């Protein structure tokens, strides 16, 4: 069970109450959390950093939606390691000790013509507010979403509602196109569809592949990078990425960058730095939690 060890110098501080929790698909969950000031300031492309309790790591999660009247922000997360698994055990009425945001530079949403949104896995969640915003800005929005299998696909109906065209793909062919999002994108571009911008959000390997597809067509491509972060305000430099040969701090200079200039190998290698420690954390979590779920 979740327990809240005595807090430290937590000042005159409210904690952040979860008002809704929904299991979307296997190991992917949606949470609405009360944070009125964050909701009021949030814009597409921004994220929050949460800390569950005193012992927790700080982890970044994209603001998937926000509601100013209700004073809530929505996060959608996938169980990866210790922190996201622990988060998945919380329910409505539970509280997060910390939630800070909105962080990062908002997406530059403008009227361009045709914009293709590519979302892979849980990356569909951060792509959703962008699709909505591009649509509202007057663009033709074509959305390509993908997952390993039909039962892992999220936000299909929500995406359909804000897209002019929605293409679904699954790696195993259980739904929509059988194959990767990049196959669909490639076909779309070859078909002669005029595209002004591609926005891709998902695992680094997918984003790198998308960049590879769009490059020969010379289409501006934007990716949202997910390096390991701590503060999210430019204070630690842990989130540094290399873009066009220059070092950038993803939490303040990004998280969105020009896909054709990103050094994805560096990103992936830095994401793997703590693999051993992550294993230790998971073991400990499973012991205190009676096994994952």
């Amino acid at each position, binding site marked *: 069970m979740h327990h809240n060890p005595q807090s*430290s*110098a*937590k*000042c*005159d*501080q409210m904690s952040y109450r979860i008002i809704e929790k929904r299991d979307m698909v296997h190991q992917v969950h949606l949470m609405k959390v009360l944070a009125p*000031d*964050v909701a009021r*300031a949030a814009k597409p492309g921004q994220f929050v950093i949460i*800390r569950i309790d005193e*012992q*927790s*790591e*700080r982890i970044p999660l994209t603001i998937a939606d926000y509601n100013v009247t209700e004073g809530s922000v929505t996060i959608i997360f996938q169980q990866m390691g*210790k*922190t996201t698994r622990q988060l998945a055990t919380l329910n409505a009425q539970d509280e997060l*000790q*910390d*939630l*800070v*945001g*909105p*962080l990062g530079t908002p997406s530059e949403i403008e009227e361009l013509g045709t914009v293709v949104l590519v979302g892979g896995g849980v990356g569909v969640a951060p792509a959703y507010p962008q699709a909505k915003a591009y649509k509202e800005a007057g663009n033709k929005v074509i959305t390509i979403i993908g997952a390993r299998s039909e039962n892992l696909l999220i936000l299909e109906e929500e995406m359909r509602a804000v897209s002019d065209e929605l293409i679904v793909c699954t790696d195993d062919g259980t739904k929509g196109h059988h194959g990767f999002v990049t196959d669909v994108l490639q076909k779309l571009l070859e078909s002669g569809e005029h595209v002004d911008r591609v926005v891709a959000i998902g695992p680094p390997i997918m984003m790198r592949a998308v960049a590879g597809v769009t490059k020969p067509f010379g289409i501006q491509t934007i990716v949202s990078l997910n390096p390991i972060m*701590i*503060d999210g*305000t*430019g*204070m*630690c*430099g*842990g989130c*540094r990425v*290399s873009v066009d040969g220059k*070092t950038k701090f993803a939490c*303040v200079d990004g998280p969105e960058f020009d896909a054709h200039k990103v050094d994805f*190998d*560096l990103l992936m*290698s*830095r994401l793997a*730095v*703590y693999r051993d*420690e*992550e294993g*230790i*954390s998971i073991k*400990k979590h499973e012991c205190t939690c009676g096994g994952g779920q």
Partner: protein
Amino acid sequence: MAARQPMPLQDPEVRRSNFNEVALGYTEEQAVAEAARCLQCKDPKCVQGCPVNIDIPAFIACIAERKFDESIRTIKLTNALPAVCGRVCPQEVQCEEYCVLAKKGQPIAIGRLERFAADYESVKGIEAPQKAKPTGKHVAVVGSGPAGLTAAADLAKAGHSVTIFESLHEPGGVLTYGIPEFRLPKAIVRQEVEYIKQLGVDIKVDYVIGRIKTLDELREEFDAVFLGTGAGLPNFMGIEGENLNGVYSANEFLTRVNLMKAFRFPEYDTPIKRGKKVIVVGGGNVAMDAARCALRLGADEVSIVYRRGEDELPARREEVENAKEEGIIFRLLTNPVRILGDDKMNVKSVECIRMELGEPDASGRRKPVPVKGSEHEVEADTVIIAIGTSPNPIIFSGSEGLESTPKGTIVVDDSAMSSLPGVCAGGDVVTGAATVISAMGAGKLAAQTIHDHLSKQ
């Protein structure tokens, strides 16, 4: 005349593998004996060296007479964070340098006595501070480091309603995320923060100004604003290999260790790489702290790589001595040229070059120049860059008219007022990385300016 009382320290062999405080503090007998050495000068030079003008002879006289309550009361008239200052002030270049006894190399241990008085009170229970009548004015303080905490304390004492906005989840600034437990226990920082809260100051953590609200919005909501946002942006050297796995900024390394308590992993979830051979680049307090943390995390060998010589090390002398005792290696007059990695992009060594001191530069220090052909490789699996920090520009985000220098520091006049009316600034965000006590001095000055400004309205 009696000799200066030595500070009891944890044994180097023991302390190099724990995070407990190194300096144990004077006993009552030691404190009284040390206080008795003070000449109670009519024109006390020591006070000139203290940026917050503590009445040093008065508080020391109280200790000599065993009136410890009165002693701490005297200190707190001008210093809201004595337990912190007594521990981390660079006393040897401040109050103690000016002490008349310094000429003989035996200045009164003012800092240690200040610490003694503060610790005496904290064991006994902190006395509730005096407050003025509420003025009905609201002041926003951005940043909860020593500058912000001091400004908030003085403003609250003057009767203003004060809200502090802090971007991290714990208040304290560098005192919390930077300076390690073994030099400044976090319980002490919390106690000092508690005292500020007792003054009625509201502290909102998880609140990044420039993101959740802009400075312009704060100016609309509050009658005045103080900016004490520090200099938290880490500088890198721009050399090859700086993004390899195993290269940390000192800020990241220390934040993981101190704020996130990675030294207690896996009890605390935040991990840190426990390097075996660690190189720390830089020669200031930050470099010493990072090196000594790395040692305590279990490194076999930790070395400081610094481009100037021993005499130029900007760190506090006491901390350099402590580091040496613990076995930190000093590779002086040495500079890294590039960092080399293996095929998995992990650090494997640092290529360094030897330096010699040439002509004095603009700062009056002799400029280090590389010795041709002296390149050599030093094995390392962790490299920590501690070559300085700059102000974080996030505070400027979405706000207009706040004047800054090319270095990113905020421009203020000699009353700490910025280019925006009603907005004061002080501490590292104005001076660039400096000291706890100078940040506090700036916070005090700004509080006075804001108080005058609000009283006129």
